[in-house]
């Protein structure tokens, strides 16, 4: 099967979910769409099970933090259609006060660890996840280290300069 053109892919999504899908870019030909957390489960389900699309491979789930936005935390899904060799990126932005989003484990078992990692680093809570706990950091950590809420290192400190280490 040939690669699906971005226009065709977007058209299919818009037909299925009118008004709930917005294209936000197509960097390097990778179609990027934004949607809402109320429909994300249906969107993922449609992309996976539609016979023409077959986005059966979940490449990654991660998140991003734009502190200046109204909805600062974005959850990002990368899907790959192994049948047509097409990729798509889906973003869902969440408000700081309500970092809940439905889990994708019902569709892909591989989402389990990805969601745990996203929770670990950004604090996104995936509703329906069977075992949502930290995966990489220590269990007693209270912060979410990938959020941009920590000051940068003091540029004047010298205790870690190269010459102390013979470099």
């Amino acid at each position, binding site marked *: 099967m040939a690669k699906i053109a971005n226009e065709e892919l977007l058209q299919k999504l818009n037909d299925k979910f009118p008004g709930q899908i917005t294209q936000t870019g197509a960097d390097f030909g990778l179609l990027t769409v934004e949607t809402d957390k109320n429909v994300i489960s249906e969107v993922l389900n449609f992309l996976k099970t539609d016979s023409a699309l077959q986005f059966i491979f979940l490449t990654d789930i991660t998140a991003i933090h734009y502190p200046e936005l109204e909805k600062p935390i974005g959850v990002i899904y990368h899907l790959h259609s192994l049948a047509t060799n097409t990729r798509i990126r889906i973003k869902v932005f969440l408000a700081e006060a309500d970092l809940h989003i439905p889990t994708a484990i019902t569709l892909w078992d591989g989402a389990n660890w990805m969601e745990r990692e996203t929770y670990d680093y950004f604090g996104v809570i995936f509703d329906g996840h069977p075992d949502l706990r930290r995966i*990489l*950091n*220590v269990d007693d*950590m209270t*912060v979410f*280290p990938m959020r941009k809420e920590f000051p940068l*290192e003091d540029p004047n400190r010298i205790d*870690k300069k190269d010459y*102390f*280490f*013979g*470099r």
Partner: protein
Amino acid sequence: MSDIQIVEAPAGVEGSGFFATKLSEAVGLARSHSLWPLPFATSCCGIEFMATMGSHYDLSRFGAERLSFSPRQADLLMVMGTISKKMGPVLRQVYLQMAEPRWVMAVGACASSGGIFDTYSVLQGIDEVIPVDVYVPGCPPRPEAIIDGFMAIQKLVRTESIRRREEPKYQALLAKYGIQ
């Protein structure tokens, strides 16, 4: 004349047919030339340590012939590489499983101070969880530096009392780390 070097006898009283010295000196001499290290190598310093163990640098000539990855019978814990906060409890458990007498050597910048990894996930020096006897600087230290650190440990072992465990200073140190 053979060029085999023999370790000098400790200070003592010598006469015909007898030699008297302190027990701790004799024991220290024996211990210092049969240190059994437990390599705890997590990253690049571990590779440097492999070179130290190899035939060119040959750590074995110090009597450190039995390198094993078990705390059983080990005297010297050599921590080489970045220790993350998640690895901290593991390292501490390995240290606790070692029997006295035991010494600890932090090899390289990461084990000594966290090195370049000034991050939320990295332990800023293993002396936050276990007491350390010798720090080896360098990133990574050359095998010569590791051997130098090893010889510094040997000197400690040679000169320490065999009752180090009972010393108030040592007990206070262990108490500071919450050990026993």
